[in-house]
């Protein structure tokens, strides 16, 4: 089925599957997906570069996390990148399930797809800002 999809769908879906699998099993391995030019916006807070991003991701205060992807969309961009949007739910330790949104911009560098931009938000609506 995968073979019949446009190439950007294959790239995007492959990345998304890999990203959350690494996130849920061993977050440290996510370092391979970012470069020193990558940007992460996590709940409105900005981080630039592999080191800053990994420091944020590995220090999130929980033991276990499980992502479940509800939907994902992918498009090619004019400069040959792939943009992916993910809507899903996550469960952390024994906390209740929460919704989230995440957006990735994927770029091909030296025949490898890396994440040049990453934006994450919980799907919560009880806040003023």
């Amino acid at each position, binding site marked *: 089925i995968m073979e019949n999809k446009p190439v950007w769908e294959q790239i995007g879906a492959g990345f998304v599957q890999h990203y959350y699998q690494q996130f849920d099993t061993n977050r440290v391995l996510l370092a391979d997906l970012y470069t020193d030019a990558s940007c992460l916006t996590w*709940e409105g807070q900005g981080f630039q570069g592999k080191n800053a991003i990994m420091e944020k991701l590995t220090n999130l205060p*929980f033991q276990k996390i499980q992502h479940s992807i509800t939907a994902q969309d992918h498009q090619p961009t004019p400069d040959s990148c792939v943009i992916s949007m993910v809507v899903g739910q996550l469960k952390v330790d024994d*906390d*209740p399930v*929460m919704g989230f949104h995440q957006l990735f911009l994927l770029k091909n560098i030296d025949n490898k797809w890396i994440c040049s931009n990453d934006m994450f938000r*919980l799907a*919560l609506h*009880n*806040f003023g800002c």
Partner: protein
Amino acid sequence: MSDGDYDYLIKFLALGDSGVGKTSFLYQYTDGKFNSKFITTVGIDFREKRVVYKSNGADGIAGRGQRIHIQLWDTAGQERFRSLTTAFFRDAMGFLLLFDLTNEQSFLNVRNWMSQLQMHAYCENPDIVLCGNKCDLEDQRAVKAEEAQELAEKYGIPYFETSAANGQNVAKAVEVLLDLIMKRMERCVDKSWIPDGVLRSNGHSSADGLPEDKTQETGKCSC
């Protein structure tokens, strides 16, 4: 549980580092009854409990009973992803600030939580009760009772060592918080300082309620 037959609705918020036992604490207080209402779309988790509050007047005469509907709000784990913002704090009337007696860092972070509260709560000195939770795990204790007591005294707030596992002091801590709030209300003849939504008195006429109720004093506050 949510019928309108009460005099006051009071919202409490449980705060503290992830893993200190906030959810278990609230669960224990509500007798383990699963009244938890989790609204996924808005990320609020709260439990409810009804109590009757009897004030002891300065004249020594036991006051009338007021039917209190307590809503206990849980942060539902979102503090792991984001810092809690103004909107989250401003609706709460009282705060249960928890740390884990077996985790020193969670105790050190009490100072941060206090400054967050002073910044974002409805006023600079809201009613707070400090709880050193997991006191049943005595062999793993990392925070001395005296240290915690000293910190609480510095802030002028009560301190309890609690166990969400066996229930020790859980109800006591909530009762003391409720008492602080009711005393604050009694001190303020003019309740207009209380922000919208923090304390909602019920429009329900309590003439048919508890016999000692005085309807002119209840259910008339429009804050």
